[in-house]
């Protein structure tokens, strides 16, 4: 990719950022590319060294505070005429409820992910509980003179205990994965704001 292509694509991807931020950043990266070229690298390599452009734009999106993106969306690009202001006020029930719904969706998604995590850990703890009960039952059976029954429960307790221990590892993996996933959702949501502008 040539430098111009890179800058144009990046400019489009950053479309939703505040104008001043955008120009500053573009100038910064342009300078970086030029300095690398001066160091003796070819234009293609210099652009390549900056990394895949999507990752690049994603990183910037992730670092940009959400409030800034919202402010930029809300800020009028030109002075609002009287009728436009009236329209915004009249339309308040509509756009406000749309925004509220969007946030409600995000929150319920988080609640859903969280309850999944709670559910799998609870299941794990329940199985562990089962193992403990198995031990008690085994003791009772042995005391009652029922060796076969006692041995059965010892076996069951060991099986449940092992299962619960293994599940614990699985739960941690799933929980971590869900956490990373939720972070990606936020970045994706932010990028919608940026794409909408472009």
């Amino acid at each position, binding site marked *: 990719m040539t430098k111009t292509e890179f800058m144009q694509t990046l400019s489009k991807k950053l479309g939703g950022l505040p104008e001043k931020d955008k120009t500053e*950043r573009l*100038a*910064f*990266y342009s*300078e*970086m590319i*030029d*300095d*690398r070229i*001066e*160091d003796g690298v070819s234009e293609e390599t210099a652009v390549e060294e*900056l*990394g895949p452009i999507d990752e*690049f734009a994603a*990183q*910037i999106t992730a*670092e940009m505070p959400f409030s800034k993106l919202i402010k930029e969306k809300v800020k009028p690009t030109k002075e609002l005429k009287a009728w436009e202001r009236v329209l915004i006020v009249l339309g308040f029930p509509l756009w406000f409820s749309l925004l509220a719904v969007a946030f409600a969706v995000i929150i319920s998604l988080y609640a859903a992910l969280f309850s999944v995590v709670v559910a799998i850990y609870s299941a794990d703890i329940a199985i562990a509980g089962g193992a403990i009960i198995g031990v008690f039952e085994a003791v009772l059976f042995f005391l009652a003179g029922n060796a076969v029954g006692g041995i059965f429960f010892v076996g069951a307790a060991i099986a449940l205990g092992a299962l619960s221990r293994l599940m614990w590892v699985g739960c941690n993996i799933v929980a971590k994965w869900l956490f990373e996933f939720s972070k990606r959702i936020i970045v994706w949501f932010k990028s919608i704001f940026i794409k909408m502008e472009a």
Partner: protein
Amino acid sequence: MDGQLKRGLLDVSVLTAIKNEDSYGYKIIKDMKPYLELSESTLYTILKRLETAEMLTVRNVEHEGRLRKYYHITKKGRARIEEFKSDWKEIMSVYKFITEGDNEND
């Protein structure tokens, strides 16, 4: 590494890179390369943050027909470096205390 901790380290590292002489973006990344990998977007955020905190100033210098931004450390920036160094002297002595026990009980 902890996110907050890393951010603090990077901030002071960038300040150190411009401590003895003004420097520009790409040179800062090159100077830090043997110690830390720094990406362009991370550096941009750090420089912006330091500028807001008045720990550095920026000026444009003409270079080969284009404008290059040079960053200059302020007194506040130097103070931040010193604060960091004394913080870490403390951390290192606590670390000594924490790990001293390891050798005895092993």
